[in-house]
């Protein structure tokens, strides 16, 4: 061993320590971006949907938006545990229950009346604490090579029919499924809903999936015959995979069936936000004509619902849908649905 070796080693350790300290600082700083106007958005919507809206908003207003994307329920839970210290200014979710949950906890600020006015009343919070941005509707996705259209259930209750054993794909953990469970429980009562869920579990067998994307994918690939998803997943899948790779179709439930549920995606400003004005600007942008045009023409395939913008995609127009009459307050915060699914052993 030469004498130079330990010295070099010592220098090496010194360098390592300096590098680590520098890295730590760098890592800390790179996260806290510029000092200009900025808001933090907790995003439970699809990242790509939000990305195009955010960049258009930044361009229009000069306000920077720091986006934190996660599952809507996770983000809502984070907001609750953060309380008054929450770094978030705005929360944007795929479904209304997460927003209703935050509203129930008194964590949301009132939305500017002019913003609420852009959207039909029935799509907003009854209290005016959040605004509806887009709508989606639950449909059946099926693979015609595994099940004929005529064999499909027309009512959500039939999904529990033993003749569909092994044919059903189910995503109990997907937040989009909760409103359907809530709707069934409202129509037929909790006891019937529980029996129905147990039937679903038996029919799904091993085809229990984490989310609607996976249901769409597995049905499309022919792993399982059919499942319930929100309509736009099928259109998105087509856009991603290319029409030649689409081997599935969608079908609607019978008009007003409890499984035929219209869900609203919405956004809210947090009461704890220290950037109330800028945060309200973001909400106003989401329901403005330019914002709704982005929703209508991007690969989001959700229904725009505000400022008179309508969908330009090959979808059934919003006005022609015949969903169940369940209202947003009746959909609630989803807790009933979750506890029913837990009782049924699905969660």
């Amino acid at each position, binding site marked *: 061993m030469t004498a130079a*070796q*330990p010295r070099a080693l010592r220098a090496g350790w010194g360098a390592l320590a300096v590098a680590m300290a520098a*890295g730590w600082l760098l*890592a800390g700083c790179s996260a806290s971006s510029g000092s200009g106007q900025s808001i933090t958005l907790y995003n439970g919507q699809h*990242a790509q949907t939000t990305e195009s809206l955010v960049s258009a908003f930044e361009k229009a207003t000069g306000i920077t938006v720091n986006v934190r994307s996660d599952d809507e329920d996770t983000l809502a839970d984070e907001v609750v545990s*953060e309380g008054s*210290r929450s770094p978030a200014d705005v929360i944007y979710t795929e479904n209304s229950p997460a927003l209703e949950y935050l509203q129930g906890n008194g964590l949301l600020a009132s939305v500017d009346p002019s913003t609420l006015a852009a959207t039909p009343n029935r799509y907003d919070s009854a209290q005016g604490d959040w605004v509806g941005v887009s709508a989606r509707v639950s449909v059946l996705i099926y693979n015609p090579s595994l099940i004929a259209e005529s064999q499909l259930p027309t009512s959500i209750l039939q999904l529990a029919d033993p003749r569909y054993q092994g044919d059903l794909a189910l995503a109990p953990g997907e937040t989009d499924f909760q409103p359907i469970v809530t709707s069934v429980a409202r129509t037929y009562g909790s006891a019937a809903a529980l029996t129905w869920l147990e039937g679903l579990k038996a029919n799904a067998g091993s085809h229990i999936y*984490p989310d609607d994307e996976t249901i769409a994918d597995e049905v499309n690939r022919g792993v399982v015959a059919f499942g319930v998803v929100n309509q736009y997943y099928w259109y998105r899948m087509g856009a991603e*995979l290319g029409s030649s790779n689409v081997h599935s179709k969608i079908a609607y439930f019978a008009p007003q069936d409890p499984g035929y549920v219209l869900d609203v995606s919405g956004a809210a400003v947090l009461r704890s936000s220290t950037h109330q004005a800028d945060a309200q600007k973001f909400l106003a942008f989401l329901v403005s004509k330019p914002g709704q045009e982005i929703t209508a023409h991007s690969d989001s395939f959700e229904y725009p619902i505000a400022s008179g913008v309508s969908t330009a995609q090959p979808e059934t127009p919003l006005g022609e849908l015949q969903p169940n009459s369940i209202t947003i307050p009746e959909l609630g915060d989803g807790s009933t649905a979750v506890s029913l699914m837990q009782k049924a052993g699905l*969660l």
Partner: protein
Amino acid sequence: MIATGVAAEPPAVADPVVPARRRLPPLFLLGASGAVAVVLLAPLLFLLIEASGSGAGTIAHLIWRPLTATLLWNTVRLTVVVTALCAVIGTLTAWLVECTDLPGRRIWAVLLVIPFAIPDFVISFGWASISTWVQGFQGAVLVMTLAVYPLVYLPVAASLRGADPGLEDAARSLGLGRVRTFLRVTVGQARGAILGGCVLVALVILAEYGAFEILGYQTFTTEIFTEFQVSFNVPTACALSLVLVVLGGVVLGAEPVARGKGRAVRTGAQAQRAIRRHRLGRATLPVLAALALLVALALGVPVGTSVYWMFASGVPFLTGVSVLDAGWHTALYSGVAAALATLLALPVALLAVRHSGRGGRLLERSTYLVLAMPGIVIALAISYFAERYAGGFGYQSAPLLIAAYAILFFPLALVGVRASVAHAPVALEEAARSLGRRPDEVFLRVTLPLIGPGLAAAFCLVFLACATELTATLVLVPTGVQTLATQFWAYQQNLSYGQAAPFALVIIAIAAVPSYVLARHFDRLPSRAGSAS
């Protein structure tokens, strides 16, 4: 102890008494190791606090529901099958590369390690996107075996390299057959490394999330994630996590029983001797074909499908900027975390190996419990502490993510450091002490050069693991920042395979660098075959 007699002689020695006190560790070492263990076990404390928040009745109800039996069965059978497969594949490949005249063994040494650089969720994405067969139990077995067998290969290869070839000669000369010599002596000497690797494999499977979600295979971890996401219910998730920690404890508890007693020590470079490698002879071609198949399955499929999706989907892939930005953050966070974890592992390894009292061993073993905790639980714990007890300090900031990585992958660092510490002969240090060197000098001039390679290996292992980590990153990533893994996940979740693919490829490229270093590194260690190849 050889050192004692000589120690009193040189007059310049500050501390003339360098007695036989291997069982009494220095206070500094004990203190540092204790501090590390406390930090590592803090998440467990969080689990207990949160779970107890929901009351014993609720916990019992949650744990004894029918779903738990399914989860337990799914988790246990997968862990057993994959661990056994990895033990066989990892040991055989390591033996082929290190102890035989396998053609191109240096290339194989690299190719066999690189699958570890590919995130489990990318491997499952690749397989699931080309075949509907790859799902559920069989899919999980296939994907996890291909993803984690390097965890056995790496320590076994290192151990075979450091093993004393004289023992094999002795066994043969005493009349033991080839196969028996292999099983009793070769595998026997590597027994510790094989078991260590198996423990890592089992624990990684217990905590895996991304791959199982893609494959639609329900385990405790996927259920914990669902529980946390869907029902706003942290206590429930924590209660289920406790079951997982108990399973991890069982794995850890079984290992020392299987390991038995005895320790193979060899005096480093001095005792090196060149012997000929085992000749494969007519088996060469089938062996090459088998290795090629393994590499094609583990490496070819995920890389191939990623490239395919990148070009096949109609969507133009992303601007290079966001890939670069995500890549930079991944490299930065992983690099700092790897250095931190290696540094933390050093005192624990020294204590465990050099002062093998019951306390030291227990301390070392307790740190492995971390691997049994899913990334999301550790992330939640850290986030919770920052938010609840530190007034929001550091909340959603990079240092918190780095700390989480260092805690999560500390056991990997420890395995790397420990192996080299165990092979470094204490006698050399004692000799240096006896010649009048101060403890810090001995550490720098003797200990470090001996264990340096192990430190580098530990760094690389942790770097790899961080760069491919998903669950904790999803929770702790600073707002406004995307790493390669989170961005891949966002696109993959959305079925945007074309846009996800470039991120997968960059993760593989970034993680391949330390893999290569790791493989080459072991290649340069004193080889049992010297420079013969």
